């Protein structure tokens, strides 16, 4: 539950960084709105987590240390350029919809109801991302090149979204989760590759498993390593987030995001 909330909160935080800086005002508003949605979804997941752990929503969202967050590394990566932002939003929201569809069958009542609610809202995010992907994919070569580079990086990092959750076996045993993360990941890659193909961006998936390099060789890994700045061992493939191993990018985001809360954790707003 916390991992689901963390994905939404951290990516929501990154989306919100476009407020005031997007290419035009409609996109300022769009990313602010999408960020608000995602952070709202995070708050709803934390409400459920709160009823299970006894911690408050604020303590869950802002009161944990860096290593206690369970989001995928993909979510914490800086926004980079517009192509990267759009590609990440596109692939993340597709992955999210697949996950939500599975959660709509959950035996946990609150989780099932929430997933149903969230998926209805997410369709606007998908329409937004689809529109931009098509616009860039069918535009000038410069945009297509950036999109291919971004797709390489993001697609390999989406593996981090489908790493098993902590105690996933228990959650499946209880019926809270209905499909193992790895199985969802396999479905996701199939869908993502088809969708990229539909945009005229054919991707090659290595036969030894979907987590390996996509599209042109290992360029995705190189880009990811450059972006993290330090070449940390766990960073390039985007794995480790579900067990609290994050990149240096997250330390900076965390310091910024939790600064106000840490100044006075007892404050009432």
């Amino acid at each position: 539950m916390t991992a689901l909330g963390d994905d939404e909160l951290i990516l929501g935080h990154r989306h919100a960084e476009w407020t005031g800086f997007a290419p035009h005002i409609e996109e300022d508003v769009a990313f602010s709105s999408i960020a608000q949605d995602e952070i709202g979804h995070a708050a709803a997941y934390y409400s459920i987590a709160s009823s299970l752990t006894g911690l408050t929503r604020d303590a869950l969202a802002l009161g944990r240390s860096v290593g206690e967050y369970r989001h995928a590394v993909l979510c914490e990566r800086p926004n980079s350029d517009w192509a990267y932002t759009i590609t990440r939003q596109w692939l993340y929201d597709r992955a999210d919809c697949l996950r939500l569809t599975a959660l709509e069958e959950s035996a946990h009542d609150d989780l099932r109801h929430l997933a149903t609610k969230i998926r209805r809202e997410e369709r606007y995010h998908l329409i937004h991302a689809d529109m931009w992907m098509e616009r860039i994919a069918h535009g000038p070569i410069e945009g297509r090149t950036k999109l291919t580079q971004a797709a390489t990086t993001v697609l390999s990092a989406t593996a981090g979204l489908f790493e098993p959750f902590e105690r996933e076996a228990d959650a499946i045993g209880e019926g809270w989760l209905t499909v193992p993360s790895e199985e969802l990941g396999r479905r996701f890659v199939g869908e993502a590759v088809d969708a990229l193909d539909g945009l005229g961006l054919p991707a090659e998936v290595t036969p030894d498993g979907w987590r390996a390099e996509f599209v042109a060789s290992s360029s995705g890994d190189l880009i990811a390593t450059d972006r993290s700045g330090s070449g940390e061992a766990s960073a390039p493939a985007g794995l480790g987030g579900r067990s609290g191993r994050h990149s240096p990018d997250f330390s900076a985001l965390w310091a910024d995001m939790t600064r106000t809360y840490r100044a006075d954790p007892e404050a009432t707003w």
Partner: protein
Amino acid sequence: MVNEATADDVWVALETVVDPEIPAVSVVEMGMIRSVEVGAGRASVVVLPTFTGCPAIGVIEQDVRGAVSSVPGVVEVEIRMSFDPPWTTDRITLEGRRKLKDFGLAPPTGEGPVLITEIGLPSEAICPFCGSRDTTNQSLFGPTPCRAIYHCSSCKNPFEQFKAV
């Protein structure tokens, strides 16, 4: 002596509670009240939030509590937020739709309740100012999570639509 409060009294009180971002329409007309139960001075109200990330929900909860508390005979109030069933735009009453339009906000889908069961393209928007269907979507996202921005080709006005969910 104070009469025993009834569920009807509570419903009447709830008609005074509005979404602070759309002050023209009550939470009852918005279809946000799932149920009201009253017994022995205790009122239980189940509220369905419109959008998960709606920042107004805290204020709405507070206002619902205030309104229900003010009903004579009610001594204890329980407010519960629920996503079961998910709030959807087809819950907005016909009167609610009319008031949205008068407020300058195009109602979500056509003129009557339409159930959106599947993920698909957003529905058309009818200009709340001139009634024209000759409108184009400018952005799926507007000043609040529940609004999209359109332009009317007939009267040339920009307008907002309450998004269908």
